């Protein structure tokens, strides 16, 4: 077992598809200066507000786990 259980290569969930499975909403989060800098390093553009889609899987048929 790896030290970080979340690390890539660890447990995953596979979504069945975007259309049938979920209900969701967008959450906007103001990033800190340090986070904006970090994101600029990662994606090459300056982002100060992060818009995230949050979804509730409605039933077990919506996902396949491994």
């Amino acid at each position, binding site marked *: 077992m790896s030290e970080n259980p979340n690390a890539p290569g660890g447990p995953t969930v596979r*979504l069945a598809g975007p259309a049938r499975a979920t209900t969701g909403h967008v959450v906007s989060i103001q990033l800190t200066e340090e*986070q904006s800098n*970090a994101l600029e390093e990662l994606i090459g553009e300056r982002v100060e507000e992060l818009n995230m889609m949050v979804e509730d899987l409605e039933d077990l048929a919506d996902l396949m786990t491994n």
Partner: protein
Amino acid sequence: MPPYCLRPDVRAAYLSSELVGVERAGLVLRLPEPITRAVLAGDPRFLVGPLGMWLAQAGLAYHADRRLTGSDLIDRNQVFADALCPGPANPCAPGLARHRFIVLGCGGLGSNAAIALAALGAQEFVVVDGDVIEFSNLNRLIWATSSDVGKSKAFALAAHLAQRYGVSAVPLSTRVSARSSSQILREATAGTLASTWVVTMDESEGARQAVRILHGLPAVAYVHAGYVGARITVGPYAATSEDPCPFCDSAGWRFSSPQFVAPSAAPNNLIAASMVAAQLLRVARLGPTGTFLKAQRWEFDLKSGAAKTSPLTSSGCEVCSP
């Protein structure tokens, strides 16, 4: 150290082959892939400020000052078990209470067969297995939780049966080998209840020996289930010595699909365990003629997904023609 830590049961979420975000307990947070990777890697820069606070409020992270306990984690096996069997069983098949079920092998097949029998109303069990539970077993020991890792399979199963179904379950943490099975079988047959046997251990010589002995005992019922090559086989119910044992016939299949190693997966095990329990329930209520597995075996082909029953033959069977 950032004020928040990602919970260890947060998982990477994929759509097709694309990493689209993280998931915990059915809540999916979609993020750009680079950010997802950074969050999953525990990059402390993303676990601070409003983002860290939001992750904590959504249940994906926890405050670093707080000691995380087992009850904070989503135990999917426990959730499944609670949904499946919310409380002690209400005995609904009184015939089962007249039998003591002796389960040789408490892996994915045997343990789930025992649970099915207990849920149907069986009251007495002897469960035998010399192995301990490993993390890699939890995908098919769906009654076990991460807190059971390292425990004896037999003791953990007995505790589960007693706690959830209120039955008497005696554990024997003994490896069922060709050498020990004879002694176990003879000792365990003492008592007033009819002993009915579920032979599901993965050690083939021990299984063969157990079936050979059981086959020679008058009026003793057993059912044998196991993976053989690309198939799962269940059968027979043997109340009389006329029933041939399928095991040696089955052994021939080991070489019929040499490239195929059947996965011991929970769904396959549950299908076979259901077949075991269903046949023993029919026998308990209707007697030996109640099962269609008398003189037949049930085969579930894992390649095609097809199941069928076929007559047994004694030709080449070491039990019937030693």
